[in-house]
Every structure is written in structure tokens, then in C-alpha cells.
């Protein structure tokens, strides 16, 4: 079962942001990871039936520590609050993952919501990305405060983001579709001094 019809052409939230004039030797590289499946999961972390059912479907245990995350191939799980997680799965598989979760947790007091169309995943990398983040968010993104794998929901300029630092030093940012244009215009302006490349 899939809830994505691949016969129709889909446009990602940042589809029109394909090129930028200031791209030579760009210090900031933006790459939209298009159409990833995104599910919001809620349940009682103290309930073993809930945690084991989720682990069976995802292949990894839910991260329980504040601001933590786990990865298993294309599946990424972000801690959002003590009883809420964001599941990011391979494009087009969200319908199947949702159905599997529902059947594994049948009868339990839980919620699974497909929010794939409401937000998008963007990766920011490059030599200027650390300084760019300093300008863009109130959160201290230094490695001592924001190590690899930590997930933080905070502000990015005047919009919100859920961000995670990857092993290569780049940042994965989940942003809202309705703010994606604003996000890009801010990015364009804030990265002007480093150069911005859109890949």
C-alpha cells in the first residue's frame, strides 16, 4: 500500500528554487531531500506494548532521551517531546509504515499522523554553514552544545525548524512547506557573503 501516486508529477516545496547566481565556490550548499515520508507518532513511552510494537515495525528502539535521535537506513526517528516522535522514512513508504504501525499497535491509545505534505527536509552543508547557523538560529550549534545526532526544535530566522547535526558536519532541517519560500529567501540573503549553491 502506498499513498503516493507516482504517475502524477509532484512538486516539492522548494522545487522552484533550483539555481542561484552566487554559486561559484559556494560556502553554503542547500539540498532538498524531496518527498521523504514524515509521520508524527504519539504514545506512552512507559507502555512496553507500545514501545515494542514500534520497535518491531521500525527495526530500531524509539529514542527516549530528550533531543536524541536514531537512524536505521532510510528511517530516522527524532525525539520531539516525552511522548511524541517524528519518523522520517523513504519517499513513498509512509503509507505502508503507517499501516504497519497501526496494525502492530491495534487497540492501543496512540496516534500516527502522516504529515509528509506539510513539511520538507533540507540539508545545509559547506564551509560557511556554521556561521550561517549562528546568524539564523538562537540555538548554540557549537559541537559542545549540539553534537552529532542531537535533535533540536527551535527558531530559524522567524520560522520554526527541527534540526539535527549529521556526522559530516552538515545540518538536516525539517521546515514547514508554508514557510519554505520564506526560509529560502532568508537563506539566500544570509549566505550572500559565502555564496549559495542549490543542488
Amino acid at each position: 500500500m502506498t499513498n503516493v501516486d507516482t504517475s502524477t508529477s509532484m512538486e516539492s516545496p522548494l522545487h522552484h528554487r533550483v539555481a542561484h547566481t552566487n554559486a561559484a565556490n559556494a560556502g553554503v550548499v542547500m539540498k532538498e531531500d524531496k518527498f521523504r515520508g514524515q509521520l508524527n507518532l504519539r504514545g506512552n513511552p512507559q507502555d512496553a506494548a507500545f514501545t515494542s510494537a514500534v520497535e518491531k515495525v521500525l527495526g530500531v528502539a524509539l529514542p527516549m532521551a530528550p533531543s536524541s535521535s536514531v537512524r536505521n537506513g532510510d528511517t530516522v526517528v527524532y525525539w520531539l517531546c516525552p511522548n511524541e516522535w517524528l519518523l522520517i522514512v523513504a519517499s513513498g513508504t509512509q503509507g505502508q509504515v503507517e499501516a504497519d504501525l497501526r496494525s502492530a499497535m491495534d487497540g492501543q491509545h496512540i496516534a500516527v499522523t502522516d504529515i509528509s505534505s506539510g513539511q520538507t527536509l533540507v540539508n545545509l552543508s559547506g564551509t560557511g554553514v556554521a556561521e550561517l547557523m549562528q546568524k539564523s538560529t538562537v540555538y548554540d550549534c557549537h559541537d559542545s552544545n549540539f553534537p552529532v545526532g542531537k535533535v533540536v526544535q527551535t527558531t530559524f530566522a522567524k520560522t520554526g525548524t527541527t534540526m539535527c547535526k549529521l556526522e559530516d558536519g552538515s545540518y538536516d532541517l525539517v521546515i514547514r512547506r508554508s514557510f519554505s519560500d520564506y526560509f529560502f529567501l532568508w537563506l539566500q540573503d544570509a549566505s550572500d557573503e559565502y555564496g549559495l549553491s542549490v543542488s
Partner: protein
Amino acid sequence: MHHIYCPYCEEMREEEEYSYTGEAHIERPKDPAAISDEAWADYIFFRSNPRGIHHEMWYHAAGCRRYFNATRDTQSYKVHETYKMGEMPTITAATVAANQVAKGDAS
């Protein structure tokens, strides 16, 4: 730059991520039909608005999106403590006053 500790995220976060949502520990009357209009109006409309120690709810709007409680001094804006929903404050107007007397700087 003003950092407030979120008891759910378990770290200090910038004030910009939060919003203030009013006085804490106001319990809804168990049987509204049985109480007087005055008691009901008191529950709905009237807040203590003290000068000094105040227990209030904050919302981690840009973060974990949970409500929690804070003990804040309305005069200095100092946040003395934050604690989860369902918990009670350890710092109150009474404990602050007792501390001042102990230090000998009661005014």
C-alpha cells in the same frame, strides 16, 4: 538574551522559543453548577497579579510544545525555577521571605 530551563527538553533555551500563558495552579471547580456566580467569576476572570513571586504557566512554543510551570519574580523578571505540570513549586513567596529574614536583609 534570556535563557529559561525547559523541564521536558532538560536544557536552557532562549526566551524567544517560549510564550507566557498565565497564572498556574488554577483548578477548575469540580461541580460548576453547585457554586455561586461569584466563585465562578473568580475562577474565570480574577488572577492574583502579585508584585514579586508568581507561579505561572509557560509554553515551549518553538520547542517541545509542552506547557510547564515557572516561579518568576514579576519585579525583577528573575525565573527562580521551572517544573513540570502536576508538580508543585519549591520556591514560594513564603520561602523567599523566610530566606530574607534568615539573611537579615528583610526590608
